[in-house]
């Protein structure tokens, strides 16, 4: 199972979201989840199982598949719920 955090350059904010997802994944004790980050233009539907983007990239991320849209990328509580939901959707919890 692969989670992918994305932003426009794949350098700064997606990297932060990725590290925060990794923290949540550890908290939840999810096994076999890899978390990566990239720029949104390099990502395709096969790049990951779940995609995480900020709300401002919602339109750009359409068509990738299971896209999780974050209202605020600095809200850890929102992210925790989003990761939990995604894990439940894919039968990991």
């Amino acid at each position: 199972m692969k989670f992918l955090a994305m932003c426009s350059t794949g350098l700064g904010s997606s990297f932060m979201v990725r590290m925060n997802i990794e923290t949540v994944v550890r908290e939840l004790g999810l096994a076999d989840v890899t978390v990566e980050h990239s720029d949104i233009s390099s990502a395709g539907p096969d790049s990951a199982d779940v995609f995480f983007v900020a709300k401002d990239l919602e339109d750009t991320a359409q068509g990738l598949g299971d896209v999780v849209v974050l209202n605020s990328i600095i809200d850890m509580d929102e992210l925790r719920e989003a990761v939990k939901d995604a894990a439940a959707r894919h039968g990991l919890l």
Partner: protein
Amino acid sequence: MNSVLQNFLDVFREPSVIVGLIALLGLVLQRKSASDTVKGTIKAFVGFLVLAAGAGVVSDALTPFGDMFQHAFGVQGVVPNNEAIVGKVLTDYGSQAALIFFFGMVVNVLLARFTTFKFIYMSGHVALYLAAMIAVILIANGFSSWQAILWGSLAQGLITTMSPALVQPWMRKVTKNDNVALGHTGNFGIATSGLVGRLVGDSSKSTEDLKIPKGLGFLRDTTVVIATSMGIIYLLVTLVAGPGYVERELSDGQWYLLWAVMQAGKFAAGVFIILAGVRVVLAEIIPAFKGISEKLVPNARPALDVPIVFTFAPNAVLIGFLASFVGGLIGMGILVAVGGTIIIPGIVAHFMTGAASGVIGNATGGRRGAILGAMANGLLITFLPLLVLPFLGDVGLQNSTFSDADFGVSGLLIGGSVRIGHAAVIGLVVIALAAVFVSSALVTRRRAVAAATEAEAQPTH
């Protein structure tokens, strides 16, 4: 014996090896498994070589652009783009830049630990670019490598700690809390936008009450944006230069308009490769920095990249970008009228820093604040890069330069003092360090007094 030392020094002159060693140290400090440590070290080493390869691609596209611009307009044309210029700089000054980047993080953590400025600069990519600029300014103006690394790291640590502090008063208005800060080399322009908004704006008329059509999502696709904007610029300059000149001197007979489109595509491809390289290098280094800073600095406030504010005011993002770009066009118009080197608006910089300026300007001064604040940023990132160009040595002739306002301000300060003399740079760094500690002590005392007064006013129940 001498040759052993020579071989050893050769290793340290190879920036990819230095980067690999920094990654290795970070992975060991994180107590990663042996296989993860080996993998991460190799990835960082190869990532740097990817970056260097991208630099060559960008350079191949920019050199003919410079010649053609010179032929068409008789002056140098410069496209500010961080990735484009940093590739070239890291090829020439990579070892020193990587060490300034690394020790700059150490200085950042120490300053955050021992002063009231608890900002940890998590935007590794712009920090790496800043280190590259500091390295080139110091070394191109006569500093030895070791002096450049010593004073450059202190300067780097000071800038990365204090730049988020500049924007924090306005950030609190946007995020409604004090837990995160903005960490980007556009901070000086973004803070200026906040100030402009406060002085001339009206925060009751928010940009977010406007109905603005969406559909500019393509602006977030960096590769598309760079290829398109550079395509327009290349085509315009090619048309002025004329088919005769281009096909004879540059394109080797290829149809000149196709050649122009191909060069723009190559520029975008080079930036794409550089971004991929930077991403791989940082992926192995930043998590260690994050982990260590969280352990060593209680109440640390991470300073994060500009998109963290974009979701707070989507309309201001678009308005800020457009206003900043208009500022860049006005600035270019002034440069054309004055004569001399032309700074062509770099679309990525105007988007990233202009959008953030729009959000901050809106928070302090509503619509008027967003528009005028972001326009001020657009003017700053046109004129500041021009003023820094003379300090960059040969790199200043690359037809590209560092694009954001912090590069301009810190480049001017460091470049200006290095021209006066090496002692001036050392004096500047020492005075800045002293100023940070003194102002930290003052802020702490003021807060203590405020807390004491509050405690007196509210007797315990």
